[in-house]
């Protein structure tokens, strides 16, 4: 039998040897074709030599541990960012320089001490500015003058504190009028005339008072 005859199944030997051939027709053919059988044996022998070589000289080798310095640096840089601070930060790590850490702590304490003192001075100045300001007391008309409670016309003298020199921020205008939307000019005027507690003008107060009710009931 001519073993050098090219068989159409010859090229499928490799697929079959490596287990990537689907189908029973090759096996059936292999049992009947001497040429393919011999070729299969020869290729299998070479393949097994490779397998044996790998098993004897490679498989027992332990996988070495690979350390890539660039990767290690890259991971550290990603966590801390870039710049001069990132560059000096490694030198400030606890493991490397405890003295540097101690110095940093001392600096932080010093800065904190200075900041606290500065704030205290600021508080003192504020307190000094507030000494001349009169104390604002609540109206005593109800407690001290019960007899005059029914007299809505009696004026109560409220202390007139000095205006605070600090500029007041313009507060947003909240309009409660329902019928007519005020114009802008009126809004500005209203904002400018917005009553402040220490400048309360009783004549402008049109809300219902308890005294008014008593007046109506008492007759």
């Amino acid at each position, binding site marked *: 039998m001519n073993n050098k005859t090219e068989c159409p199944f010859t090229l499928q030997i490799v697929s079959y040897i490596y287990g990537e051939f689907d189908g029973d027709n090759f096996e059936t053919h292999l049992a009947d074709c001497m040429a393919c059988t011999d070729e299969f044996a020869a*290729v*299998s022998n*070479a393949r097994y030599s490779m397998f044996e070589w790998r098993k004897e000289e490679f498989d027992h080798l332990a996988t070495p541990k690979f350390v890539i310095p660039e990767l290690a640096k890259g991971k550290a840089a990603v966590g801390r960012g870039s710049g001069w601070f990132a560059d000096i930060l490694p030198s400030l790590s606890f493991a490397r320089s405890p003295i540097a850490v101690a110095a940093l702590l001392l600096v932080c304490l010093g800065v904190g001490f200075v900041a606290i003192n500065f704030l205290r001075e600021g508080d003192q100045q504020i307190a000094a500015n507030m000494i001349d300001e009169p104390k604002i007391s609540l109206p005593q008309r109800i407690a001290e003058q019960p007899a005059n409670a029914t007299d809505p016309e009696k004026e109560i003298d409220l202390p007139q504190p000095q205006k605070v020199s600090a500029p007041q921020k313009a507060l947003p205008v909240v309009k409660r009028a329902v019928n007519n939307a005020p114009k802008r000019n009126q809004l500005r005027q209203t904002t400018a005339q917005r009553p402040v507690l220490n400048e309360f003008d009783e004549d402008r107060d049109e809300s219902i008072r308890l005294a008014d009710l008593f007046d109506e009931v008492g007759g």
Partner: protein
Amino acid sequence: MYINLTDEELVSLAVSDDRDAFGEVVRRWERKIFALCFGMLGREDDAGDAAQEAFIAAYKNLKNFRGEARVSSWLHRIAVNQCLTTKRRQKTRAEDFIDTDDDSEAEAKTFIAAAHYSPAKQAEKGERLKLVRQAVKALPGDLRQVIVMKEFEDMTFQEISDTLEIPLSTVKSRLYTALKQLRMRLDKTPVEVV
């Protein structure tokens, strides 16, 4: 005494109940038959069992060898059939016991086992590994690339094709060519019939 005889002469002596002659046949072809079984079954233990059974079957059927084909081809055919039987057995998961004579099986084991663990065999193995290393190194780059990816990285044909950006058929063709070249470089058995 048997080293200088051809395979056909050894088989003729074995037919005449010369067991040592058949032992020499086994010694010459055990590795290649084992490799063939490994190529069909994919596992060393299964391949060993199949090769064992193939030699037992060959010993039993010595009288049926007519000399129309080479002894190697005859052994290959027996091994292939044995492997196909093993695969069918594994598929159906049925326990088919080989109807073998315990004595003949023991004799066959003697043919194989006695030579397997000998120091000469170990030395031959070391020499063979050295040859494999040199043969792989001597392969052209494109062939070596494919065979290393297949054997050492266990990549599928499709994965090799995608990695190297070559057609699937080219991968198989290169692998086949690489294995054939390896076979040519490794075949240094004096009685090997070309």
